[in-house]
C-alpha cells in the first residue's frame, strides 16, 4: 500500500511539474507568425519594398508587381494590408500611370504616402494611401525624373533622391509635405549608369542600395547622408541639411562595391555594412568624418562569408522598453536563410545571431521594430523555387533571445 501511495505522490508531483508547460506554451497568434502571400497565377511576380505597422497592429506592405498584362517597362505598385495575425485583409494594384514606387513608405501628418513615378513622364508623383478602404490619390507632383528613394526627416520635410538621365546626375531634393521643393542639389556622375538604373528599377539587374538618412540631428553637426552614384562609384555622400551641398564622402569601388546599409548611432559613429566584389562586410561601430573624403576599403571591418553575393542588408536600432539599445542587421545567406545579427549599441560587439527560413530562395526587403518589442521582417521568397512572392515574419521578443 505504501508503494502505491508513493506512486500517487510521484504522479501528482509530475503532473504539477509538467502541467506548467501547458500555460507556458500559450502565445497569441499576433505575437509571432510567418506568412507567405500567394497568388495562384504563376506569371505574377511580387517584389516587396517596405512594411509599416498600423495602429490596429496590422501591417501595410508596399511592393512592386510584375504581371504579363503590364503594358509598360516599369513595374506597377502594389499595396497589401494584413491584420495583426498577418492574415490578408485587402490589396491594391496601384492604378496606371503610377509605377515604380520607391522602397520607403512615408508618414506625413499621420497619413501614409508613397513616392512613385509617372509611367509616361518618369516624374515624381506623391500618392496618399487611404488605409481604410485601400485606395490612393495623388497629393503632389514634381518634374524630377527617376525617383530612387525618399524619406521624411525629423522636421517632416520629404527628402527625395532622383536620377537625371540627361544631365547624368544624382539629385537630392528637399520638399515640403505637398512636394513643393525647398532646395535641390545634384552630384555629378561620370560613368553612364542609365541602363543600370533602368534595370534596377525594373528589378531585372543588380539592385543598388539607394537610401537617405539623417545624422547628428540632436547635435551640433547635423547632416543628411545619401547613398547614390557619384563620379565613378556608388558613394555615401554627407550633405549639408540647409542646401544639400556635399560636405564629405565615403567612396567605394565603381558599381562593384557599395555601402549596403548605414545607421547613425551617435557623435560621428555609424553602424555600416558594405559589399565589395561580391563579399560582404559589417562594421557595427565605425567613426565617419562627415566633412572629409574617406574610402570604405580603409576600414578594419568584419567579413561575413555566409552572406549571399552583394547581399541586401537592412539595419535598425532596436530599442527595448527598458531603453536598452541593440543594433540589428538582417540579410540573407548563401544557403537561403535569413540571418539576423545582434550587436551591442554600446560596444559594437556581437551578442546573438538568429536564422530563419531554409530551402527556398529568400531575400530581405525591410526590417522594422513592431509592437511588444517584436521585430518584423519583410522578405521576398521564391515559392517552390519558382514564384516570387511576398513574405512577412513577426518574431516575438521571447524568440529573439536578446
Amino acid at each position, binding site marked *: 500500500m505504501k*508503494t*502505491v501511495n*508513493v*506512486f*500517487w505522490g*510521484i*504522479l501528482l*508531483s*509530475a*503532473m504539477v*511539474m*509538467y*502541467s506548467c*508547460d*501547458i500555460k*507556458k*506554451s*500559450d*502565445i497569441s*497568434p499576433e505575437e*509571432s*507568425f*510567418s*506568412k*507567405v*502571400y*500567394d*497568388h*495562384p*497565377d*504563376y*506569371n505574377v511576380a511580387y517584389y516587396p519594398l517596405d512594411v509599416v505597422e498600423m495602429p490596429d497592429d496590422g501591417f501595410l506592405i508596399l511592393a512592386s508587381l510584375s504581371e504579363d498584362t503590364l503594358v509598360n517597362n516599369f513595374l506597377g505598385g502594389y499595396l*497589401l494590408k*494584413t491584420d495583426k495575425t*498577418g*492574415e*490578408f485583409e485587402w*490589396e491594391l494594384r496601384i492604378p496606371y500611370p503610377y509605377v515604380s514606387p520607391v522602397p520607403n513608405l512615408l508618414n506625413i501628418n499621420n497619413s501614409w504616402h508613397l513616392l512613385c513615378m509617372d509611367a509616361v513622364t518618369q516624374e515624381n508623383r506623391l500618392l496618399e494611401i487611404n488605409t481604410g478602404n485601400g485606395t490612393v490619390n495623388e497629393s503632389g507632383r514634381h518634374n524630377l525624373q527617376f525617383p530612387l528613394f525618399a524619406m521624411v526627416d525629423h522636421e517632416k520635410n520629404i527628402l527625395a533622391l532622383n536620377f537625371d538621365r540627361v544631365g547624368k546626375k544624382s539629385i537630392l531634393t528637399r520638399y515640403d509635405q505637398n512636394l513643393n521643393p525647398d532646395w535641390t542639389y545634384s552630384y555629378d556622375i561620370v560613368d553612364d549608369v542609365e541602363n543600370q538604373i533602368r534595370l534596377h528599377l525594373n528589378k531585372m539587374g543588380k539592385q543598388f542600395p539607394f537610401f537617405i538618412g539623417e545624422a547628428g540631428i540632436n547635435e551640433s553637426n547635423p547632416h543628411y547622408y545619401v547613398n547614390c552614384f557619384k563620379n565613378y562609384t556608388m558613394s555615401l555622400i554627407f550633405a549639408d541639411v540647409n542646401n544639400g551641398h556635399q560636405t564629405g564622402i565615403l567612396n567605394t569601388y565603381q558599381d562593384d562595391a557599395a555601402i549596403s546599409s548605414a545607421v547613425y548611432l551617435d557623435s560621428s559613429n555609424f553602424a555600416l555594412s558594405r559589399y565589395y566584389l561580391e563579399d560582404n562586410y559589417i562594421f557595427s561601430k565605425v567613426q565617419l568624418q562627415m566633412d572629409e573624403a574617406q574610402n570604405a576599403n580603409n576600414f578594419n571591418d568584419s567579413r561575413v562569408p555566409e552572406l549571399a553575393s552583394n547581399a541586401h542588408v537592412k539595419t535598425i536600432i532596436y530599442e527595448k522598453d527598458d531603453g536598452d539599445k541593440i543594433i540589428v542587421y538582417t540579410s540573407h545567406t548563401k544557403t537561403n*536563410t535569413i540571418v539576423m545579427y545582434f550587436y551591442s549599441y554600446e560596444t559594437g560587439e556581437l551578442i546573438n545571431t538568429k*536564422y*530563419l*527560413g*531554409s*530551402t*527556398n530562395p*529568400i531575400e530581405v526587403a525591410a526590417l522594422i521594430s513592431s509592437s511588444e518589442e517584436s521585430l518584423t521582417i519583410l522578405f521576398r*521568397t521564391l*515559392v*517552390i523555387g*519558382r*514564384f516570387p512572392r511576398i513574405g512577412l*515574419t513577426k518574431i*516575438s521578443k*521571447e*524568440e529573439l533571445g536578446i
Partner: protein
Amino acid sequence: MNIKRLIQSIFFTLIIQYLIHVENAQASLFDGFQRNNVTSRFFVGFKGGINFSQPLILQSYSVFSQVSGLNTGNEAKTYSGFLKNTGYQYHFIGMYNINNNLSISFQPGVAQYSYSYENDYSWITEGDDINTITLNYSHKQNLRYIEIPVLFRFEYAIGNISPYIQGGISYGILQQADKSVSSELIQHSLSGDIPLNVEDNESVVSDLFIRSRLALLGGIGINYNLNGVLLGLEAVYNAGLNNIVNESRRFSNQDFLSGNYDVPDDINLQNLMINFVVLFPLNKGTNQKDDSCKLFLKKKNK
C-alpha cells in the same frame, strides 16, 4: 540533470522496484492460489494493443495567405480519417480492489499516437487551365508519450465472465515527436503530366509540441477468469483535454516552415484504444481485513 529528468528517474526506479516486488511475490501468489481459493485485494498485469487517433482542430494555421480574396484551397489541411491514424500502446497494471465490484488501478505505460493530413497547392497560367503546376504534401506525425493513467473500474461477475466499465484520468509526458513529409510536384500540360520532383523529409519535431497531455478515460471491457488469471479485452476512449501543440514554437521549425510551408494547427488529440489485458492476483494472505477480498475472488472463481 534538470528537475524533470530527476523526477523521471525516480519514477522509473520506483516502477522497477515495484516490478521486482511483484516478481518476488509471484511464487507465493501462485502457491497460495493453488492451495486455497486465493484471497487478494491486489492484481498486477499488463495490457497492450492498438489505437486510433483523431485530432480535434482548435485553431487552424497556415503559412500561405491567399491574396485577391481568392479561395484556391491552397492553405487548407485535409486531415485523415480515424481509421488511418493507427498507433500502439502497452501498459503495466497495478490494481487494488476496493470492494467486490469497485477497483482502482494504476497503469503506467507507453503510447504512440499518429495523425496525418494532406495539403494540395496549385498554380495556373491565367486563361490556360491546362498548363498548371500542382504540389501535394502528405504529413504524418508520430507522438510517443509515457502515460500515467489512474482508473476506477466497476465490474459485475457472471460466472467466469466479468463485464466492466471504467473511467479515469491520464497524464502523458511526451518523449518524442517525429514528423515525416512526402511531397510530389507535377507539371500538367497538353502533353500530359510531368513529375518534376518527389521529396521526403523526416525529422524529430518534439519542440513543436508541449510535454504534457491530460486526458479523460472511459471505456468498457470484459474479463474471463482462467484458473484465477484474468484475461480481458477492453476499449478505452482517451479524450485529450488540452492543446498539445507548443504555440510559442509553432513557427520555429524552419525546415518545415519554409521548406514545406507547414505549421501545426492547435489540436486536441482524441483516441480510441483497443487493449488485450492480462491480470494476475497477488496473494497478500488471509486475515480479517481481507474478508471483502475473499468474497470478491470467490465470486470471481465461481
